């Protein structure tokens, strides 16, 4: 039996075999009929950020779809924690399991293979299959709009940005933020500090204070706590938030790039119920129009004129305007996107360069 499995695994390595298997399973996947979603949250549902945004979407879905959606909170990113939570939901009749973390990817892949009748959806995940879809938002669209607000608010033309770790999905927000700022203020410069952690308020405070010492008067962020916004308020400067509308925590916040998972999940659950679930080999990468996010804008400091510009740009993005459209060079002068072209999704995920005007490692 074990040998048989190993042979199967080996065979699956071949691209042809994988495609065959995926194709077969895809064809076999039937409608779930009566959808019963359940949510597995990585963090506490009142974390003020990522997890709470998913929880708020869950509550909206309960109203809109008129059903109860159970939820398990604070399930760490380890198979021994995820599996029992998911299996308990499945035993109780759930047929759509919604995750919430990058670290759920592998376990969700295993579960999806083990429970082919259940659909798994994982925001921030990386694995996909005939009944498993990882989803993420095109956060550069919303951060671009927040960048416009920052560009319009800055007097010193120095904007700061507190980010977690330098890799694709963080780097694209950094770049888009400055590109947005420069659309309304061509003299804007962006200093970015990477804290190396997603939720370390000690480092976030130090980073924000260091940026303020350098003369920045607006602070954007892509970390999980509202600390940069709170520090901005303490120093009487402005800020823009991420994950949720952070004006809840700080009067400094003038715009936030927010998650709108309900806008994606509602049609998705309805599609699954109708038997029209569309597997995506590389996951779903959602724009504002597809429910990938939006902005909560604008605070009192934003003029009507600036707000109108931001909203007009939002409409343009929804209508199909591309942020990373060529010609676009990095800060070393290397051409990254040629005239008339748009940066591919693969290049977005692998983005390891910054546009001119970004300082910091």
């Amino acid at each position, binding site marked *: 039996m074990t040998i048989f499995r190993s042979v199967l695994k080996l065979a699956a390595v071949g691209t042809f075999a994988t495609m065959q298997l995926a194709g077969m399973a895809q064809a076999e996947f039937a409608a779930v009929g009566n959808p019963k979603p359940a949510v597995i949250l990585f963090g506490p549902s009142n974390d003020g950020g990522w997890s709470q945004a998913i929880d708020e979407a869950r509550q909206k879905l309960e109203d809109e779809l008129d059903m109860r959606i159970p939820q398990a909170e*604070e399930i760490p990113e380890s198979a021994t924690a995820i599996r029992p939570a998911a299996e308990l939901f499945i035993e109780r009749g759930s047929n759509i399991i919604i995750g919430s973390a990058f670290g759920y990817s592998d376990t969700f892949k295993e579960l999806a293979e083990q429970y082919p009748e259940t659909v798994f959806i994982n925001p921030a995940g990386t694995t996909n299959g005939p009944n498993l879809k990882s989803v993420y938002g095109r956060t550069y669209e919303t951060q671009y709009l927040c960048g416009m607000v920052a560009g319009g608010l800055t007097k010193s033309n120095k904007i700061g940005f507190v980010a977690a770790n330098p890799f694709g999905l963080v780097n694209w927000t950094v770049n888009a933020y400055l590109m947005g700022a420069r659309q309304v203020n061509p003299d804007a410069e962006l200093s970015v500090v990477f*804290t*190396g952690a997603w939720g370390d308020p000690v480092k976030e405070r*130090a980073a924000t204070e*260091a940026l303020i010492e350098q003369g*920045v008067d607006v602070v954007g962020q892509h970390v999980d706590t*509202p600390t940069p916004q709170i520090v901005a308020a303490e120093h009487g400067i402005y800020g823009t938030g991420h994950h949720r509308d952070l004006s809840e925590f700080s009067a400094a916040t003038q715009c936030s790039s927010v998650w709108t998972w309900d806008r994606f999940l509602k049609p998705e659950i309805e599609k699954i119920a109708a038997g029209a679930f569309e597997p995506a080999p590389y996951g779903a990468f959602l724009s504002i129009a597809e429910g990938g996010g939006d902005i909560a804008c604008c605070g009192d400091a934003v003029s009507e004129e600036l707000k109108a510009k931001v909203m007009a740009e939002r409409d343009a993005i929804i209508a199909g305007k591309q942020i990373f459209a060529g010609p676009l060079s990095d800060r070393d002068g290397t051409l990254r996107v040629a005239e008339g072209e748009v940066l591919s999704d693969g290049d977005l995920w692998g983005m390891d360069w910054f546009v001119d005007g970004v300082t910091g*490692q």
Partner: protein
Amino acid sequence: MSDLLLNWLINIPGFAAPFAIAALGLIITERAGVLNLAAEGFMLAGALAGVGLMIHGAPPLVALGGSVLAGMAMGLIFAIMAASFRINHVIAGLALVFFAEALTSYIASAERWTNKAISGLEPVFLGQDVIVYATPVLCALTVWMLNRTRFGLTIRAVGENPGAADAAGIDVTAIRFAAILIGAALIGLAGGYLTVAVSRIWVDSVVGGRGWIAIALVIFARWHPWRALLGAILFGCIEALIPRIAAAGFDVPRYFLQMTPYLATLAVMIWAAARGRDRWSQPAALGQHHIREERG
């Protein structure tokens, strides 16, 4: 450039103080022969108590008093496990860290303390708060206690040779119990300082591994309080420097800077191993239980 230096210097003590205070607590506990790996958990308890009390309107110093008590409450559990029931110190310590992480998350979540900004401990002189000024005093007191008082000498005797201490009529369990509680009080204070004075906000796992750094710091310091203070300042220098060079746009390899304190710790450990035992080496009975009936 001079601004950068000044801002850097001003910010070093705030980063160094929690490392130094936690390391002092660990030194007192470990000099009694109790290996304490639970520092991260004690700090979390102190950090949460500080934030909770601040949210309920307590002044910062009262909140820090609560941190001390919260640290001691965790210390009591550890003392019962490690000193009274003689459970393996490593396992008891690690279990307590996980317990504290879950417990603090649960309380913070239930009480809705997460992400609430608090006012914090204000500076009193030269941009530094009272705890920063208290840190060298605490260090001096620890040195004095360990070297000049009967109680301190008893702690060291228990940590070096519990059998001999027992034969001399010392209650090994009671001394270890006391050393754990005093240490936990200081570690709790360090955790409280981290949230009440530095981050001014609670999020889950806010301590962020600083308890583990304190453990490394104790090894770096070879269980000596003044060297621990020096090491804490080194760690504080790096923590305060990294965001500043990034914000100023200097092209310095950040990852190498982050490694520096650990490289220094490794170097000291290798140096100590090569040099052999001396007056300032690891307590001889560190991590060993003393059971009178099994005395060799």
